[in-house]
């Protein structure tokens, strides 16, 4: 998808020389992602994976023209790394870390106001545009180029949906994980808008879960503004109230947080809904044929 990660995107990694960033930068380069360098404070001036390492994001942007950053800093340092990327003018910031304190994200979101940066995550597998590249930790071999856009809160459930779609011969234009945290950078509605404007996308699959108002807000936005078919699934039908189901944001705090309430609202707003997670692929196929 052209907005967030396309063939012209120039990618850096923050925390570049660490074990995880190294592995996932190499994986990204293998599928053609245009990685132009990375940042590790204290290691500026050295080379890593044959690419330049910088001390600050500002330097990296000046030297390489980077406009996308994959942040692999651990949770205690992630908020600072995100704000450094915003300050340096990075447009798409992908935050992998799971476990960033929620008040840190409240401050980050305040800092982002008035800038052109988009934060994907935290607690996300990242973005992949099959055939173009990826910034994230998803297994790229399961994705294939196609015309379905996917946006999800969960990582592995995203993979599950992709596998079901692949069995039916459906590929993806882009897959974007917005992450499982209660306060995240980009919500469903923002990504839906990007897919609606994207000429390479014919239909969009939205994979949500219990907790928070995002899925229903996105469905409301879509009813007014979206012409492409929108398919929705919400995980956590059998989740008990008041318990965090793994993701910090997956908790039923009120009646509107339940999977059933969200799915019913989405259906009432005219979306194609999936009630059984085994039917995701089939429902996408039905939606694009309708």
């Amino acid at each position, binding site marked *: 998808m052209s907005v967030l990660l396309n063939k012209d995107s120039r990618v850096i990694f923050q925390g570049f020389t660490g074990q995880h960033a190294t592995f996932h930068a190499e994986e990204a380069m293998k599928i053609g992602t245009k990685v132009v360098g990375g940042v590790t404070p204290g290691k500026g001036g050295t080379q890593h994976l044959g690419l330049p390492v910088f001390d600050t994001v500002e330097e990296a942007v000046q030297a390489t023209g980077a406009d996308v950053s994959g942040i692999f800093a651990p949770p205690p340092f992630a908020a600072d790394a995100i704000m450094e990327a915003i300050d340096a003018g990075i447009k798409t910031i992908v935050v992998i870390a799971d476990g960033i304190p929620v008040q840190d*994200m*409240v401050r980050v979101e*305040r800092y982002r106001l008035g800038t052109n940066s988009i934060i994907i995550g935290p607690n996300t597998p990242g973005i992949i545009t099959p055939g173009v590249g990826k910034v994230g930790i998803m*297994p790229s071999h399961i994705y294939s180029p196609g015309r379905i856009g996917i946006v999800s809160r969960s990582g592995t459930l995203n*993979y599950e949906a992709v596998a079901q779609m692949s069995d039916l011969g459906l590929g993806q234009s882009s897959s974007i994980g917005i992450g499982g945290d209660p*306060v995240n950078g980009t919500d469903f509605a923002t990504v839906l808008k990007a897919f609606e404007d994207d000429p390479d996308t014919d239909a969009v699959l939205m994979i949500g879960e219990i907790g*928070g108002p995002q899925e229903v807000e996105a469905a409301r936005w879509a009813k007014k503004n979206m012409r492409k078919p929108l398919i929705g699934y919400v995980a956590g039908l*059998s989740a008990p109230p008041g318990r965090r189901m793994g993701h910090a944001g997956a908790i039923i705090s009120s009646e509107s947080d339940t999977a059933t309430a969200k799915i019913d609202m989405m259906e009432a707003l005219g979306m194609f809904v999936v009630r059984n*997670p085994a039917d995701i692929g089939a429902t996408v196929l039905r939606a694009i044929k309708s």
Partner: protein
Amino acid sequence: MNIHEYQTKDLLKHYGVPVPPGRVVHTDAQAATVAEEIGGSRWVVKAQIHSGGRGKAGGVRVGNSIDEVRVIADEIIGTNLVTHQTGAEGRLVRRVLVEQASNIVREYYVGLIIDRATRRITLVASAEGGVEIEVVAKQTPERIIREIIDPAVGLLDFQCRKVAYKVGLKGALLPQAVKVMKGLYRCMRDNDAIMAEINPLAIVDNGQLLALDAKMTFDDNALYRRPTISELRDFDEEDPKEVEATGHGLNYIALDGDVGCIVNGAGLAMATMDAITLHGGRPANFLDVGGGATPEKVANAFRIVLQDPAVKIILINIFAGINRCDWIATGIIQAMRDQNIQMPIIVRLAGTNVEEGRTILSTSKFPFIIASNLNDAAAKAVTEVNNIVQKVVPLKKEHS
């Protein structure tokens, strides 16, 4: 992480929020001593467990003499208090808070939440104190006042005044209300809480505002930088299986079904539970082994799931991204061998190194039930568990 009421009140006191004089005690004799020390003519004895609805369950009672306080404390300490949040088994009361009783003129609600839509901390207040705020929100949403807080400047005095006026805290109460709201906000911000509420915040008969009950929940992800909050954790209030799971880097939540689940990823774990439910089965737990699961981690997952005596079968559903199916399979074999598992095991593997993983399972001596996809896995799990239940029921009848 949740803490007890007495701990919340101790914290709030440091931030200038007025609370009734009182202390936590572990015995009836201590309760009597504390009542005498704090003085007054009436005292409240409050069970300290991590649950709402303590009053209705008989866990909050008033004593009109030192002797009554002693008797009430004796009755409450050591009982299993059953509230709408504890489940039928209830929660053992290990300590009570003894406080001076107040003559309440009026009750209010003041709370702070992290609003997910605005991505800000939001001050919430209502003139309907003493009632759960969710109930007010549902029945009379117009009676809830909200004020969004800009983290760059924090909660401002004028915002507190706006809220106070709207709920009817005027005149001499206004500066007190501002102090309470700002104290609550600072306490939440400085300690990385994700929720803080005073309910009720009461006007008592001397015209003072007093926080009669208070609750705070803290961000587990921020405990690393809040050592004093971490120390307030009470493991007695948590499911020991969940505590053990956390120690192994696993995310486990006990449920009341009989199909044990071992899955990678929170979303897929929930979807797996959903698929089981839709096939007519009941998941026994949520369990996320996370990314990069080693064979040891998988074996630990088995150990924790099997601590639940209700578990009759186990369903493993792995879609490996940064995980590896061969490691998962090795972990499964290790668990089968070391833990002498006899129940049916349904395995669905997909993703990275899936062929290697399947080979490890098929060349082992264990009779795994292999599922090809999510639907197949859920269907097979429910069929297996139904077979077991049908075999057990007639046996029970013969013995009775």
